């Protein structure tokens, strides 16, 4: 099949995106703009420039290659990028020999992804692993995602989807057919707070959660950010929602600072510089709230 989509990474040997050893395909493009986003390069659909100043030797090849004059050289400093002038043509990426400039995102066909996915079949078979679509948001590219999943099912691979849930119902329906597991991100149950921190209402998300949990084994994933969604009441509400939907597993993912440095690399200002992960003992308390209700809770990753 010749269908292509936009992805920004294929990561092999993932052990935290579902059972066993997995290959995770990260889709590019996301409808939400969570302020704590750990993969800010996944938000925009189009491929974009990513700069790692720590690898820059100041050789100037990028500046010479840039047709817009958007790279500025200063003595003894990494090359500076004038983001407002950058057209993401990637001339500088091709010119850079040091890996300081990369394109985040590329077009990939279902065929080429399948080849990469099937390379690790022996590991899936031994470990009960498989393939996870993550992102970004796979549901934003439903045709592409559906085809990829269908091909995985043809190969009898275990399939999982990690989703924020913000998508038309048809997209969810289309994918659910080929899914063994859904890892559903719930960031905030309060619609106003949800909009404040992610830019979107959570109405649609919660309805899709309901849909998936009725059709596919579904686990919840909660990115935990101090003061944003780590109250005990919120956890209690989440746990009760899980019980009502028959969800048996919740993963708590404490905030980490990986996103902030990546935001810098794509010329974004990180929206909540002061964000931090809840204290460990508080995470323990939250864990207990859910596990006391009989839900399996994991922390991390």
């Amino acid at each position, binding site marked *: 099949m010749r269908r292509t989509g936009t992805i920004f990474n294929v990561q092999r*040997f993932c052990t935290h995106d579902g059972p066993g050893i997995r290959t995770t395909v990260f889709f590019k493009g996301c409808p939400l703009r969570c302020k704590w986003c750990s993969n800010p390069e996944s938000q925009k659909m189009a491929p974009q420039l990513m700069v790692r100043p720590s690898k820059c030797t100041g050789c100037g090849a990028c500046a010479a290659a840039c047709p817009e004059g958007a790279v500025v050289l200063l003595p003894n400093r990494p090359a500076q990028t004038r983001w407002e002038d950058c057209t993401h043509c990637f001339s500088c990426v091709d010119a850079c020999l*040091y890996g300081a400039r990369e394109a985040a995102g590329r077009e990939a066909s279902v065929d080429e992804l399948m080849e990469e996915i099937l390379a690790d079949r022996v590991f899936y078979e031994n470990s009960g692993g498989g393939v996870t679509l993550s992102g970004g948001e796979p549901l934003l590219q439903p045709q592409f995602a559906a085809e990829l999943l269908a091909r995985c099912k043809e190969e009898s691979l275990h399939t999982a989807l990690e989703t924020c849930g913000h998508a038309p119902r048809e997209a969810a329906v289309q994918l659910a057919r080929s899914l063994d597991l859904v890892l559903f991100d719930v960031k905030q149950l309060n619609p106003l707070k949800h909009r404040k921190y992610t830019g979107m209402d959570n109405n649609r998300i919660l309805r899709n959660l309901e849909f998936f949990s009725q059709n596919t084994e579904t686990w919840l994933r909660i990115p935990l950010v101090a003061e944003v969604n780590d109250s005990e009441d919120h956890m209690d509400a989440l746990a009760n929602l899980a019980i009502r939907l028959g969800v048996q597993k919740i993963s708590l993912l404490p905030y980490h600072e990986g996103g902030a440095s990546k935001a810098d690399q794509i010329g974004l200002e990180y929206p909540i510089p002061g964000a931090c992960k809840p204290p460990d003992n508080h995470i323990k308390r939250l864990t207990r709230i859910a596990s006391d209700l009989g839900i399996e809770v994991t922390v991390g990753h």
Partner: protein
Amino acid sequence: MATHSPQEKNVRDHLVVKTVRNIRKHGGREEDADKGMYRPDIRLDLERSILLTESYKATEGEPMVLRRAKALDHILSNMTLYIQDWEKIVGNNVATPQGLFFGIDMNWRSVRRIVDQDEAKTLLDDEGRKKLDELIEYWKGKSMSDIQQKMFTGPVLECWQIPKGGAGTWSHWSELGVPDYEKAFTLGFSGLIKQCRARLDEIDQTVPFDYVDQKEFLQAVIISLEAVIKFARRFAALAREKAFQTHDPADRARLEAVAKVCDRAPEHPPETLHEALQSFFFIHVVRYIEFSTLGIGVRFDKVFGPYYQKDLEAGRITREEALELLQLLWLKFHELGLIYSPTLSAIYGGVAALQAICIGGVDETGKDVTNEMTYLVLDCAEKMRSPEPTIALRYHDGTPRELISRAVDVIRTGVGYPAFFNDKAILPLLDRWEVPLHDARDYSISGCVYLELPGKNISHRAYGGFILPAALLCALSQGRDAAGNLVGAPTPDPMGFSGIEDLMDAYEEQVRYMFQRLCTIENTCQTLYERHLPRPFYSALLEGCIEKGMETKKWGYPSPVANICIVLGPVNVSDAMAAIQKNVFEEKTVSMEDLLAALASNWEGYEHVRRLMINAPKFGNDDDYADRLAVEVQHRSAAAMEKAKNRFGVSCRGDGSGISATYAAGAFLPATPDGRMAGEPLSDATLSPVFGMDKKGPTAVLKSASKISTRETFNHLLNQKFLPQALSGDMKEVFIDYIRSWGDLGVSQIQFNVVDPQTLLDAQENPEEHPDLLVRVAGYSAYFVDLSKGLQDSIIARTEQNF
């Protein structure tokens, strides 16, 4: 970190550390020399040398094989014996627990040199140095190294040393090999002697053409075996004497038990586990006394499991008692350190005697051998956390998951073993080497990844290191070194190469040419060993020697399994090929002329070229572009090496035991086209990606490694580094599945460094706080503090695989 009871701690307190520090890079450049080669309480033992010299003087003019047997008898009858206050398994090859074995009959020059220098001054006092000089007076011209130097001339002599040897370095060095313990236990030494006498009677009747040789050999075997029985009796007597002197009833019981065991071992077939272990250790120690020896190689669970089972069934032993016996045996293994030359210390950094034992796998009929002893060995290893013996675990489809799980527990402690060896890869290889299936199924591992066939006439050693990237550089220089001397084959001018095939052909020719030269030395050396250092004792324990009336060196097990030369840097070569293919021949971003100039200047002024070479596809990422060339390089190198034959017409071959030579050889090697700078280490094993070049994670590494056919090449080594948490909690099962996938992929070996990089960095800064930190170097584990800074750096640099 596991906690240990006071009692366990006491056992470990008896560990005597004789590992050699890696203080020099190859070529004698001093590095960290003030650290000293050995720990300050270690001494060079001269007793064997003194007794050997006495005996040699008394037997001049007699046939060599009898002289060697009589020398062994003289040593075993007169050497100082000791039984320390904790020993239950006894036997020593040096006069004190702090002694270092010294084979003066092998080589004395480097030893004489270093005992005057800072790095090894503490090994002898002035009186000792005087005594050493007296002994040397006798051995001048008689030691093996003297005899060899007289033999070799011209370019062949140059192979002795890097860098003059082009791509190879040859060294005379201790041998490995595995006695037929099962036969020795079934017959007892009394039975072996009977066998010799029967053979003597037979040849007295038939008088074959080599009658005199056979007769002398068989007489020598009898002298040797009887000498070992006497040696055991001396231990029995010493134990009784000590039992008489002690007032502690528990101690008396211990010593009386030792005496009783030594009354029977190794003369009679053992009846208990204790007797079997004691017989084994006598054989092991005497093998080390007879001839400079390394390794163990016994299939520990297969050989000792039945004795343990019998004792358990008879109610003679508890699990705790058996475990204690093993721990005490482990302590004894540690007393078997030997003196290294500075050159060898660079290659064997952190080694005492390279001792490895083997567990798991199948028996001769294909049945899994896992038994209670298998698990006991792992329990012992976990408690001892000692650099030797390392453990080789043979893996096959029928290996119980429980055994892998237990092995992972031990690996998680960071000791670096067990390493896994894959029957799926190794049995087909042995098949290609024409080893009958029955013998092949009993293969074992004795040192790094040295393949052994227990009891078969194999007495090999790593006689050299073959540095494949040096052959590649010769292919790019028409066989000339930087000074213009012809060190390799005169292959065509690289400026005329029209594609990677031309380079590949030239490279293959260099490998063939230089390896042939190395084998010329080795084959000559083997005839010298045969003439000057026959081994009647070891021969008695190998299938066929008594039967044929022929000493081990006079014939050989007819398979390439017996001839090994360690292979260094195949991955650097294949990464270089991929980089040249891409940049020079395909995309033409670098001209051959610029590449050669860049290499000659160690990339100085050619950083642009170096980056292009580094950015080319690399082995270890499951990328066929790089992996296809890796397959071609590895398969063609192995085939070129096999064109060289040993004295009996059997192919010589490579072996993946990299030891720390990947570091030592890299130290003198100029820049290579994979982007490596001059002096940097080579990739740390024959299947390991170059440091930091594997960017697709641990599954991609295994996939790349699996493309290299073990059957078409040789046994390999693959290092993987993980954080401890990757083997803990939920992740443990995933890790086991990863190992099972490795098994399915048919990669011949895998071993793990499981350590937090911060711990390594801290140990580098504060070595005194980490005296016990073990790391996996190559096919062995070593104390991190014994390694030179550069070697430490190279271990820290191994790509860490994250879960």
